[in-house]
Each structure stands twice: as structure tokens, then as C-alpha cells.
């Protein structure tokens, strides 16, 4: 059991975890945008988990039952498809001025005038009951989107319909609801493909009008502006219905398909509806459909900036507590809006509290007491787990299967700020670095003789061949000379320290006194700069981070694998790495040595960037305090020696001013470099690499 397991209950793994990355890419293929999939707990209030432009909120377990012709993966694929089509069909790109082919226009012309406010916000602002308008708009868009999904994705059709059928289960019966809610429910059911529905006789007319209007959006030509027109009409009907009482009177089955009214309902909107005090509390809440997203701030035009339409959002959150609690007690609005702006993790509710901000040389929570390094081999149980031995210098032997390395992909943070920041701060270094590397790139040319293929005849070989030929012997065909470039392929792995101390700030730059930078940021800049240079000259490189909480939990974060190419995804992962606990360097070195060894390169380099000496919770502590440093250094030194023996040349670079004191013990002086000012790391790393590369 890991030390962390004592502190935090194991989080429930979402059902889509194994496919998380693939589903994210699937979303991107369908709509061209990236997203992160974030789970919410099964018992969570769905209304608190609206999607944003960068996150999809999905239940940890899909609401399907045994007997449904669906797998969990099917359900998630349908949910992601629906959400992707919101993006590709322009749900959030409403433009009131754009013509649409289905309805006589009711949108007021005033909406067409240019305005800094988003079109959707201004449109929704027309309605007296904004929350009701948003719900109607969202339900109608869902209907339009699903109709298009069924047309576009024939291969998914059967699974899509099955998910829709499963979604109808457990919904309230319209016949038991107050009139407005009953018609709203009929609308949602129609959007889920139900063709027959029982409604009170008195509501047959309004239901037919609403559903008939809605079903026009299944037309392939329908656009989001068509949905807006339909919203005006449906709102006109629903707002005119009372939302109390009902649930009695004779019931009749209405065929929703036959009821597809062609008449345009006669609505005259945009007079302020008469509202009674407290009326809003009785307003209808559409029962959410879980494979679809629930309306959030983006349904009132709040995409990434600007102030929210507070009134509308307040009405979308759960009804205020009668005791008069703060309506935003869960911080929903703020979190949602921050999430829209892309600067907050709105998943914080389900995730464990982050560790407190580290103090200098604090290696995370104090777990020492819970860690017993006594014995026990570890086993790798997945394809991303690896077990390595450890050198016990005190006992003078290897401990077999002692450290478990787990690979993980850092969370992807969509932002190109690393790139911009790096280029702003260190871009001036790039041309010189590339030039320096290019100079050492070809290792010269070789003049090759007696080749089977080449530019010129090799005179000696040609004469011999002629002699052979005339003497009746079989001549050699190696009669050419050639000039070949000597190649020196290089593969390099950069390993950056992600221990919690990398969250410390570096001393401010006198030229930019306000800029706050952590050691981690400087490390990121450094590897990002190197990556750009290496891409230009063609060296193979990988970027990894390492951290851990004990021998059974050494984490290697794969930002860019050696055989992966640099892509925006790599930059997003680099942005997503976070400081985390301790520095057990040796297992990471052993893992990366393995990794590099698989590469057919003449030169293999391992560059470890760190901010302090190796340390872990169960790393020599068994021999007493005074042995800790010796134990950790000896193991690290041993791992470096193993690397050298296997043809991987290690280099250490540290921003720890005391680095000289211990690195000298385990490295050749040419193999390590201590930097006085962490801000110099990018430049120093570049210089070190040029030197390392030319030694090749």
C-alpha cells in the first residue's frame, strides 16, 4: 500500500479512464477542438457540472443497466459525439443576423446590430424568464444536434438510439406534472426520439405546437439560428402555461410524429411577461439527460471572457436554500466561469485537496512514520509499470525488484503560454544554439572505395575487374568510389525534477521585478527551448519528469516520449506537469537508460535536471538519519554507472548551489554542472548539451 493511500481515500476511477485520451482525440476529430474529460461522481448534482469550452463533464459510471445493448464505452462515445456536434454545428456561434431557412423571422432586427456582447447572451436577454429560455434553447439544440448525429454517423446509429432509449427510462411522466413542466418533458422526450407520449387532454394543443415546432429542427438545413426561432415559439407557449397544479384530468396518448404541426404558433414575444413575486422559484427545471451536457454559462454566451449574465446563471443553479444560504455556496458560478476562462480546475470538488504549499525543503506531507522500508519485492502489474533494483550501499548489495516506476501522462493544459514565454525570455538563444549544434552535426565525410554503387569508377578496382574479365574469371562488382556523410545519430532524454521543492520561487530578475517564476517554470523553459533547437537539427529527444512518494510509487511523467514527435499535445503536457513530493532519481535514471537503449543511435545522452540532492521517504532511513544522504547518493551513483556501462552517457545539471558537495562524489567533473542562479538554467542547459553532443 502506498503512503498516499493512508491519507486520501482512493478516488473512484471513472469508467472512461482507460479510454480518456482516445475519447479526447475522438472529440477533436469530430469537431476540431481539444478538450479534457472530467468525471463527476454518480451521486453529484448534474446541474453543477456543465461542460465548458475546454472540458466535458461525464458521470463516473454511465447510467445504463444490464440488458441494455450497450457497453460503457458505447455510452461514452455517444456522449462525446453529442458534445462534439455542439461545437461543429455551431451551438455557441449564434449570429442573429444570419439567415436561416425554416421559420418566418421573429428575431427582432435590433439583434443584428454589431455589439461587443455575445449574440447568444443578447438573444437570451430578450426573454423575461432567461432561465426558461436557456433551457428551451438547450433542449432544442440537443434535438437538432442528435438528429444530425444520427444522419452523419451511420455506424453509431444503433448505439446512439440505444443510449436515447436508456435515457428515457426514469424520466417523470408528463401526466403527473404541472402543465408547463409536462409540456417541457414532452419536448425532451421528443428530442430523445419518443414518438408517443401520454399528456393530459387539456395540454394536447400546446404539446403538439411545441413538439411540432421542435421537430422542424430535424431538417438537415436547420442551423442554430433556426433553433433560436424555435426557442421564441416554444417559449411563447411554455411561458403562457401555469406551472402549478395539474397532474389530474383525463390523459390521452399523443403521437408526436403525427402531431408535427406545420402551423407556426402565434406568439408575440418580448413584451415583458407578467411575473409574480416568487414565481421564479416555481419555474420549470428540465430534468437533465445525462449523455448531454447541462446548460452552463456558455449557453448565455460566456465562452472565455466577459462578465456573466448573472441573473440567468443564478436561475440555473439549484434553488436557493430556504434558510437563505448563499446561492453560490458550492462556488459553482465562480468555478464555472473560471473554468471557461481556462484558469481553474473545476474538478476540485471531487479531487483530494492539493497538498499545502511547500515550505523550503518540505517534501510533501510527512509520511515517514508510515513508511516501512523493511522488505518486500514489488511487481509491475500494468504495461506502464516497471520494477527496478536498488543499490543498498550500507549492505553492499542490490535489493531486487525494489522500486516500482509508474509512467503517467501529465494532465494536458491547453495553452501556448510556455512557448510564448520561452520565446520571449530565451528566444534570443535559439539561433546561436541551433548554429552551434549544426556545426557539430555532420561528423565529416568519408571517401569510400570499392563500393558496389557510387559516383565514379574506382580506377584500381576497375582495372582489376577488367583483368579478371579478360582472364575469364568472375569480376567483382565493387568498382565504384563514393562519398558518404558520416552520421552521428543522437538520442537524448531530458529528465526534469518534479519534486515539491521545484515549486519554490527563484530570485526575481532585476529587469522584470514583477515576474514570479518557480524552479519548475525555469526547467520547463529550458527543455522547451532545447526541444525547439533539437527539432531543427533532427536529434531524437524525449522529455520526462520524475517524482514520487516512496519506492512503490516512483512516478515518471512522460511529456514527450523519445519516439513521439513534437506536437501541440506535447506542449500542453509540459504545461500540465506539477510539483509532487520527492526526488528518487535512480529508478528514473534506470528507466530512461532502458528507454534510450532501445534506440538505435550512435550517441545516447541522458540529461538530468534537478534542484537538490536525491531524497525519498524510504531511502536509507532504515539505517538512521546520518546514512540517508550516503545511501541515496550511492544508489544514484550506481544508476549512473549502470547507464555508462550500457552506452548511455549521463549528465547532471542542478540549480542547487550545494550541488558541488555531492555530485562530485558520483560524477566525473565533466558530467555535471552546478548553476548559481536558476534563471540561467536554459542557457546553461543549452551550453551543456552542445558540449555533450560534440563529445558524442
Amino acid at each position, binding site marked *: 500500500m502506498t503512503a498516499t493511500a493512508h491519507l486520501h481515500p482512493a478516488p473512484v476511477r471513472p469508467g472512461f479512464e482507460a*479510454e480518456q*485520451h*482516445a*475519447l*479526447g*482525440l*475522438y472529440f*477533436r*476529430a*469530430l*469537431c*476540431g477542438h*481539444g478538450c479534457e474529460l472530467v468525471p463527476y461522481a454518480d451521486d453529484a448534482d448534474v446541474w453543477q457540472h456543465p461542460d465548458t469550452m475546454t472540458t466535458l463533464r461525464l458521470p463516473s459510471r454511465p447510467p445504463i443497466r444490464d440488458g441494455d445493448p450497450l457497453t460503457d464505452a458505447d455510452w461514452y*462515445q455517444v456522449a462525446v*459525439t453529442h458534445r462534439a456536434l455542439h461545437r461543429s454545428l455551431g451551438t455557441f456561434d449564434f449570429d442573429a443576423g444570419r439567415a436561416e431557412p425554416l421559420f418566418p423571422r421573429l428575431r427582432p432586427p435590433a439583434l443584428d446590430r454589431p455589439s461587443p456582447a455575445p449574440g447568444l447572451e443578447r438573444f437570451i436577454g430578450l426573454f423575461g424568464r432567461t432561465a426558461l429560455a436557456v433551457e428551451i434553447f438547450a433542449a432544442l439544440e440537443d434535438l437538432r444536434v442528435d438528429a444530425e448525429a444520427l444522419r*452523419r*454517423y*451511420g*455506424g*453509431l*446509429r*444503433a448505439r446512439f438510439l440505444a443510449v436515447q432509449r436508456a435515457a428515457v427510462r426514469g424520466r417523470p411522466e408528463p401526466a403527473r406534472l404541472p402543465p408547463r413542466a409536462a409540456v417541457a418533458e414532452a419536448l425532451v422526450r421528443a428530442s430523445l426520439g419518443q414518438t408517443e407520449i401520454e399528456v393530459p387532454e387539456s395540454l394536447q394543443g400546446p404539446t403538439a405546437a411545441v413538439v411540432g415546432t421542435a421537430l422542424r429542427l430535424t431538417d438537415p438545413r436547420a442551423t442554430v439560428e433556426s433553433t433560436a426561432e424555435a426557442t421564441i415559439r416554444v417559449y411563447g407557449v411554455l411561458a403562457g402555461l401555469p406551472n402549478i397544479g395539474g397532474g389530474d384530468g383525463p390523459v390521452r396518448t399523443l403521437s408526436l410524429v403525427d402531431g408535427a404541426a406545420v402551423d407556426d404558433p402565434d406568439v408575440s414575444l418580448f413584451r415583458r411577461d407578467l411575473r409574480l413575486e416568487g414565481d421564479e422559484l416555481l419555474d420549470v427545471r428540465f430534468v437533465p439527460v445525462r449523455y448531454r451536457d447541462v446548460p452552463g454559462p456558455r449557453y448565455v454566451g460566456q465562452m472565455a471572457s466577459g462578465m456573466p449574465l448573472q441573473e440567468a446563471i443564478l436561475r440555473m443553479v439549484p434553488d436557493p436554500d430556504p434558510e437563505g444560504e448563499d446561492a453560490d455556496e458550492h462556488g459553482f458560478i465562480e468555478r464555472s466561469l473560471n473554468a471557461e476562462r481556462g484558469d481553474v480546475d473545476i474538478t476540485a470538488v471531487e479531487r483530494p485537496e492539493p497538498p499545502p504549499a511547500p515550505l523550503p525543503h518540505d517534501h510533501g506531507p510527512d509520511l515517514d512514520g508510515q513508511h516501512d522500508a523493511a522488505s518486500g519485492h514489488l511487481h509491475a502489474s500494468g504495461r506502464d509499470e516497471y520494477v527496478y533494483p536498488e543499490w543498498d550501499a550500507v549492505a553492499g548489495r542490490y535489493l531486487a525488484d525494489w522500486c516500482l516506476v509508474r509512467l503517467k501522462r501529465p494532465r494536458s493544459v491547453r495553452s501556448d503560454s510556455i512557448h510564448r514565454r520561452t520565446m520571449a525570455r530565451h528566444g534570443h538563444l535559439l539561433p546561436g544554439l541551433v548554429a552551434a549544434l549544426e556545426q557539430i552535426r555532420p561528423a565529416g565525410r568519408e571517401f569510400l572505395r570499392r563500393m*558496389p*554503387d*557510387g*559516383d*565514379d*569508377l574506382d580506377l584500381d578496382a*576497375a582495372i582489376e*575487374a*577488367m583483368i*579478371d*574479365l*579478360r582472364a575469364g574469371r*568472375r*569480376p*567483382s*562488382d565493387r*568498382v*565504384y568510389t*563514393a*562519398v558518404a*556523410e558520416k552520421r552521428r545519430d543522437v538520442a537524448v532524454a531530458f529528465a526534469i525534477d518534479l519534486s515539491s521543492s521545484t515549486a519554490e520561487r527563484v530570485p526575481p530578475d532585476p529587469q522584470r521585478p514583477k515576474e514570479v517564476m518557480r524552479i519548475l517554470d525555469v526547467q520547463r523553459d529550458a527543455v522547451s527551448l532545447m526541444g525547439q533547437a533539437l*527539432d*531543427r*537539427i*533532427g536529434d531524437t529527444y524525449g522529455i520526462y519528469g520524475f517524482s514520487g512518494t516512496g519506492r512503490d510509487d516512483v512516478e515518471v511523467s512522460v511529456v514527450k516520449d523519445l519516439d*513521439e*514527435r513534437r*506536437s*501541440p*499535445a506535447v506542449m500542453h503536457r509540459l504545461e500540465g506537469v506539477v510539483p509532487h513530493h520527492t526526488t528518487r532519481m535512480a529508478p528514473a535514471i534506470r528507466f530512461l537508460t532502458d528507454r534510450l537503449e532501445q534506440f538505435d543511435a550512435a550517441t545516447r545522452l541522458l540529461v538530468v535536471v534537478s534542484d537538490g540532492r536525491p531524497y525519498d521517504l524510504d531511502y536509507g532511513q532504515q539505517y538512521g538519519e546520518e546514512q540517508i544522504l550516503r545511501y541515496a547518493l550511492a544508489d544514484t551513483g550506481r544508476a549512473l554507472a549502470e547507464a555508462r556501462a550500457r552506452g548511455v552517457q549521463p549528465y547532471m545539471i542542478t540549480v542547487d548551489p550545494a550541488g558541488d558537495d555531492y555530485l562530485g562524489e558520483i560524477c566525473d567533473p565533466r558530467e555535471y554542472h552546478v548553476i548559481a542562479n536558476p534563471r540561467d538554467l536554459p542557457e546553461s542547459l543549452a551550453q551543456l548539451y552542445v558540449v555533450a553532443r560534440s563529445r558524442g
Partner: protein
Amino acid sequence: MPETATAPETTAPETTDALDEDAEPFYLPIGDEIELFRAAYAQRIPVLLKGPTGCGKTRFVEHMAWHLARERGNPVRDALVTVTCHDDMTASDLVGRYLLSPEGTDWLDGPLTRAVRAGSLCYLDEVVEARKDTTVILHSLTDHRRILPMERLGTTIRAHPDFLLVVSYNPGYQASLKELKPSTRQRFMAIEFGYPDVDRETAIIAHEAEVDDETARSLAFLAEQLRNLDEADIIDGPSTRLLVYVGALIRKGVPAARACDVALVQAVTDDRDIQEAVRKVTRAVFAE
């Protein structure tokens, strides 16, 4: 026992089969590339074709060579010489070399020399792959001189009036690694190719793979979706050529989803997660 110690055939660069007089290479234009190419040819301005792999560059050159040869009354079989460049290709591979023969040495023209003498279009595919010292021999052919120095023969040959040099490269592929030297690339007019839109790609797939319109359209739609991953640099393509392969398998009775697995999913990436994502898209378009 061989009579001569000639260099093995394999040292000669790969050249394509000659065009067939009776078979017009099918090409569906996506813009004004045909007009541009004709204008360039009229002025004998060398042409650089840029575009992703499998988008139709080679087919376009074949199409143009076929038409230009017929219009000028030249034999179609000599209309085009194609050389696929690679990083071991030397100037000799293009210009020619001496071979040993029982009598001494024989000179063998390389493909470029053949094209220069015969007045063919010479198409150097993926020219960035060639070594930089190799591309330099193209310089005197691509300006007003239109000559090819034959260093080893000690002569210079003047290009046939109908000769034109066409090169291609794919800027997205290993973009940061290999680029044309400015002194080379500024000798060409450039025509940029992209993937065709869904309608055109449908027509191309239907024609080339001989599948029905509905299948062709589904494949073109599938490609349009997957190219969102190309935009994000996650995969390359898929190319129109790959879709034609998938279509051809479908026509031969392989179920569509399976054909996508073997000819598309496996071809665009080796990463398991990306494969799974691509497979999900193919399974959303084609039922299992």
C-alpha cells in the same frame, strides 16, 4: 557467369513506368492548378508542387505530361520521367555514370539526362530528401541557361525545348528537419496542393476505387473528420490515396469497418490511443 561487370541495375534510381497512350491519367482539379501549370510550361518556368502525401501531386504531373505530350505531338511514353528522391541519391544517380563493359567503359545516361535530351517532364518526387549537393546540379537547368553540365563527360548539354523540371515536396513532413535551400527553391514557381473538399474527394474515390457514391462519400467524410487530427499534428492525413485503398478493399468485399482498420487505422499511426480514437471515428461512420 556474367559477361560484364556492369553496375547492378539497382543503383539506377527508381523510375516509373512510361505513360500509356490510350489511358489518360485521371485527375480532378481542385483549383486553378491546371491553368497555372500550363502557363508555367508555356514559359518553361520550373514548377514546385507542395502538399501533403497522397493528395495527388504525382497524378497531377502524369495528367499534365500526358496532355502536353499529345498536344505537342510527342510520344506519350517519353512524356514523363519520374525520380523518387532519397537521401543516398547522388548527382551521378541523376546525371549518369560510367559502367564497365568488356571493351572498357560505357556511359549510361541518368534519368535527368534522358529527360533533358528527350524533352520530357522530369519529376523529382520528394526533392528535399536528396542531398543538398545533389540538388545544386539542377540550378543551371532551372534558369535561362537550361543546360546540364556533364562533368564526367566534360561536356554540357542543352535542354530540349520541351523539357521542364517539376519537383515536389511535402512541407508538413519532417518540416523542421529538411527544407530546400533558398537558392534552390527560388528557381521554381510553387503550386500548393491540399486535400480536396468532400465532394471532389467523393468523386475521386468513386472513380479510382470504383465504389458506389455513398461509400465514397462516407470515406470522404471520414477523412474530413480525421484531418482535424492532422491539423493538430497528431496524425498525418489520411491521404486521398489511402482512402482509395480502403475503397478498393470495400469493393472487394471486405466489410467497411474492417477495411478501415487494416488500411487506415494502422496506416496513420502506431500510437495505441490515437489508433483507438481513429477506430472510434471509423466505427461512428461505418457500422461493424
